[in-house]
């Protein structure tokens, strides 16, 4: 109790409150700019945190990352350019809602369910950290392999186009992730003798390229789309309560999946959003509406990625193992400020821990009013002429790619991926699946190869361990399910409502 009061005192310090507010605005703005990502927002904060008190420093990271993950939905919804890989899963859905004139509902859902997900995730951190940590520690490379594999399969579920093309796009992403020497063998692969390729291709330049640059490219050759009917931008939160009640079950499922995936190091918010969106479609009563501007998937995935963000701090705080790229940076800041991760943080410095919890809660609460303002400002781009928006996006792509590593080569990558994304899009290959492949590639290969090394080339251990056995069964179930349905439909000659067998 004394610790709790002390925590309140720590957080109520003026410098902490100012840090929270400033980094909230910063996170919202950076996350909402196309071409800039949540990870970049966090990385650029590190020098700033150097000058802050420990609690204020951590507060900036927590707040900015939560805000940036939410506001990554904004450009995705308005311009079809996701701000973070986590938003890529449901960008098409949100954009379809905007075209239907429901931008406020789509963005409101992103905001409302992000906040709920963030708070539920925080509660899981507060109440179940040791339990969740125990779970994370029972995962060895075998389990991670299956998990990553399951994540990859979401590509086919999410895409509206041909599943074969989705798989092809994802494989292309995996192939791209092979580039460089960051592979288990430490051998340079497909680098064509370029030093800059040794470190591989980061997901962010790829994401920025295939979505943002290719969108600018499309704008160059298509006539300006008919302006959306001029009307007042409606209330943002008005319908959210209705959605909450209607989609209560998907929301909780999203929170739950987000927490679980967030806790597992290496997976993080990106994967949580994908898995949740795919789950939502799979178990929905009206899956045929997905992709046409249906809020159900947004509810689940929006809750999921923010829930994972909070629970991703569990392994970071307890064992110093980063849950994702953002917490990897956060751990550095924790160390720098003498808040060394480890169980002692929870016992000896309990007041600091409570302060972190409080900051999480505050961040997710102020996200709502600040997010509404941000959405209202951002929505003006819907009215701005395209010729004034797209060039600025292009400039931001260049700067955003350059910013994290001060490396011009990333800008070149962005340009190359713009062309790749443009061609793929024109020919019905979903670019989101490509991004998923690039994001997950290293994790899949790393865990596959190291598992094989550990088992001396034996396949059996992939199924032997209890958790990996369950995950393997789930994977095969998910793999064989659509094939089974397809065969059944064929033999029965029955027509699916969607008309799959009609051809």
């Amino acid at each position, binding site marked *: 109790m004394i610790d709790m009061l002390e925590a309140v005192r720590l957080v109520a310090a003026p410098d902490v409150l100012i840090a929270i507010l400033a980094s909230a605005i910063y996170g919202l703005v950076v996350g909402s700019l196309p071409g800039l990502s949540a990870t970049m927002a966090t990385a650029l904060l590190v020098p700033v945190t150097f000058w802050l008190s420990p609690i204020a420093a951590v507060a900036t990271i927590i707040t900015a990352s939560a805000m940036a993950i939410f506001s990554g939905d904004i450009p995705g919804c308005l311009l079809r350019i996701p701000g973070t890989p986590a938003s890529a899963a449901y960008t098409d859905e949100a954009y379809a809602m905007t075209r239907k004139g429901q931008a406020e509902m789509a963005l409101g859902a992103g905001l409302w369910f992000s906040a709920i997900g963030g708070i539920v995730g925080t509660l899981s951190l507060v109440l179940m950290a040791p339990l969740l940590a125990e779970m994370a520690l029972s995962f060895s490379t075998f389990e991670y392999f299956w998990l990553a594999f399951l994540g990859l399969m979401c590509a086919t579920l999410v895409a509206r186009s*041909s599943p074969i093309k989705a798989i092809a796009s994802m494989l292309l992403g995996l192939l791209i992730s092979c580039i460089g020497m960051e592979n*288990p063998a430490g051998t340079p692969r497909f680098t064509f003798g370029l030093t800059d390729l040794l470190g591989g291709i980061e997901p962010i330049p790829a994401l920025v390229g295939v979505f943002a640059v290719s969108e600018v490219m499309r704008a160059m050759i298509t006539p300006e789309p008919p302006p959306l009917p001029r009307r007042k931008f409606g209330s943002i939160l008005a319908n959210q309560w209705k959605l909450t009640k209607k989609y209560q079950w998907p929301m909780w499922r999203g929170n739950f999946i987000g927490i679980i995936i967030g806790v597992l190091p290496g997976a993080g918010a990106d994967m949580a959003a994908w898995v949740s969106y795919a789950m939502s479609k799979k178990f929905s009563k009206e899956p045929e509406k997905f992709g046409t501007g249906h809020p159900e998937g947004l509810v689940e995935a929006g809750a999921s990625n923010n829930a994972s963000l909070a629970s991703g701090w569990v392994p970071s705080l307890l064992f110093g193992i980063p849950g994702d790229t953002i917490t990897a940076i956060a751990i550095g800041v924790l160390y720098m400020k003498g808040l060394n991760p480890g169980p002692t943080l929870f016992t000896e410095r309990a007041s600091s821990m409570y302060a972190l919890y409080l900051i999480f809660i505050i961040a997710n609460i102020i996200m709502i009013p600040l997010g509404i303002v941000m959405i209202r400002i951002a929505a003006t781009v819907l009215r701005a002429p395209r010729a004034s928006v797209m*060039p600025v996006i292009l*400039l931001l792509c260049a700067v955003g790619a350059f910013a994290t590593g001060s490396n*011009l080569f990333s800008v070149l990558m962005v340009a190359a991926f713009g062309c790749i994304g443009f061609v793929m899009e024109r020919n019905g290959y979903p670019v989101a699946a490509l991004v998923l492949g690039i994001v997950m590639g290293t994790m899949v290969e790393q865990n*596959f190869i190291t598992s094989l090394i550990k088992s001396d*080339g034996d396949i059996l251990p992939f199924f032997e361990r209890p958790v990996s056995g369950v995950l393997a069964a789930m994977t095969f179930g998910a793999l064989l399910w659509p094939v089974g349905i397809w065969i059944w439909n064929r033999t029965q000659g029955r027509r699916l409502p969607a008309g799959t067998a009609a051809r």
Partner: protein
Amino acid sequence: MQLSDRVTGAVLMALGAAAALAGSRLPAVPGQDVGPAAFPLLIGSGLIICGALIAFGIGRSFEVPEEPAAGPGPWRLGGLRALVPPVLLLFYVLASERLGFLITGAIMVFIATLALGARPRLAVPLAVVAPLLVHLAFYKLLRVPLPAGLLSAPW
């Protein structure tokens, strides 16, 4: 760049074959049985299969029927215009160190705005204001070392 499924399928098959071939040539790592070749081989084979399925239209029967909506919109002034953004990014890579961020950014924005069909009345002020704002935010607030080049910012 609308290509038939046959073409894209064939390209994927070729890419998969190249990846598998190049992958299999990677040297084994001393002390390890599973080397760097395994994963590219696996993915390459996968790409070959997918490419074949696409090229021969087998995957079609899985396909969820797509509403004919979207489609390729009417093209304006040829597809080459689509190359303006990547070329401008290339220009940024080559020129920003020498010309500096402000000038490079201004040229980029100016050309892109014109290419989108706007009048100079919009392009000129946008080309002046946008790079300045971006520079202020990134250089001043976030300390990203944007090159100064010929024209350094007033701050």
